[in-house]
């Protein structure tokens, strides 16, 4: 099979398009790159959606945690504590067990004259169940980051806003929130990178892959198990994830430049790739 044929057959394998049987005989670099790259679709799906929805919940959590009202503060604190304090793979495992416990046929909700059946089986599938876990997890981490940034908003900015006569929502939207985002952004970039790395855990613990439709690590493990050679499959997935990280840094760097555009040139902080050799 030529490389182009492999790409057409397995390029979208992870979402069920193309050849059903995974390659058995010859496994060249082309097969590795194609199939692991096709698995990367799932990593992108989980990462992008969880980050997008998590961003909004994280903002709400940060504000709730900073609020003086204990009815808002305590739930936010507990939420952040639970999701930040437990390892992600345990969350996956427990969420999967909980979703499996739900009746497969759905839950009937009688509303007097009509009965609504809420379907629950989709929750135990990875595309929804794991996404919910990742969404809650990233919301908790990002919520704490935003909360920290909110606490670090300079007093001078707030006094300036007061001097302009801004109050309430206007003050928050024009002064507090942009500054909070600006301060939180480098740490949030970090969280986004971690998030994409965490997506590899989905099929690794808890959620099963149906019809061998898995993510990048799933296929990498498949190749490593079939060829008995982990030194090809895992570097391939590493290359993909380095590229993904560089993309994330690029996109978040653009947002960072926009958030910092009002600052004088010398004070601007750029998000740079600083490879950590020692950790």
């Amino acid at each position: 099979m030529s490389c182009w044929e492999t790409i057409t057959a397995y390029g979208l394998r992870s979402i069920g398009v193309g050849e059903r049987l995974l390659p058995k005989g010859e496994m060249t670099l082309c097969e590795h790159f194609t199939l692991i790259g096709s698995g990367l679709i799932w990593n992108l799906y989980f990462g992008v959606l969880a980050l997008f929805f998590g961003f909004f919940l994280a903002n709400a959590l940060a504000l709730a945690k900073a609020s003086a009202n204990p009815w808002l503060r305590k739930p936010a604190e507990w939420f952040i504590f639970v999701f930040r304090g437990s390892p992600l793979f345990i969350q996956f495992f427990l969420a999967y067990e909980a979703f499996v416990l739900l009746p497969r046929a759905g839950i009937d909700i009688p509303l007097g004259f009509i009965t609504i059946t809420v379907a629950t089986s989709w929750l135990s599938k990875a595309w929804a169940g794991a996404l919910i876990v990742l969404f809650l997890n990233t919301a908790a981490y990002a919520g704490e980051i935003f909360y920290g940034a909110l606490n670090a908003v300079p007093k001078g900015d707030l006094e300036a806003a007061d001097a302009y006569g801004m109050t309430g929502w206007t003050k928050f939207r024009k002064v507090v929130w942009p500054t909070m985002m600006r301060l939180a952004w480098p740490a949030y970039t970090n969280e986004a990178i971690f998030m994409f790395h965490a997506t590899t855990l989905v099929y690794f613990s808890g959620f099963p892959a149906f019809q061998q439709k898995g993510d990048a690590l799933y296929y990498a493990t498949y190749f490593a198990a079939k060829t008995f050679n982990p030194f090809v499959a895992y570097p391939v997935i590493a290359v993909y994830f380095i590229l993904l990280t560089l993309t994330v840094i690029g996109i978040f760097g653009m947002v960072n430049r926009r958030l910092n555009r009002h600052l004088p040139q010398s004070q601007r902080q750029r998000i740079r790739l600083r490879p950590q050799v020692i950790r």
Partner: protein
Amino acid sequence: MILIQATRFCSLRIEDIVYWASDLGGAKTSQYDYPHPDWRLWYFIALLIFYLLLTRVSESVLTRLTARLSHGQATMAGEAQRRAGR
């Protein structure tokens, strides 16, 4: 905190607490056929509590450190401390 949790991933080859939880908890492994049913759920819940307690300890230390560091700073946190009269 992330570091404590990440210690688990050193152990995909080394047999740590989570390895034993998923191994002993399962009803059947490659080596043994345990006479008990699937206990993994309970093992993992116990682990969850263990990790949460660990987080509690580290969080209390970090909260104290944060309060100390933001004392007198010209930020929202420092201002809130000043208002509270601490």
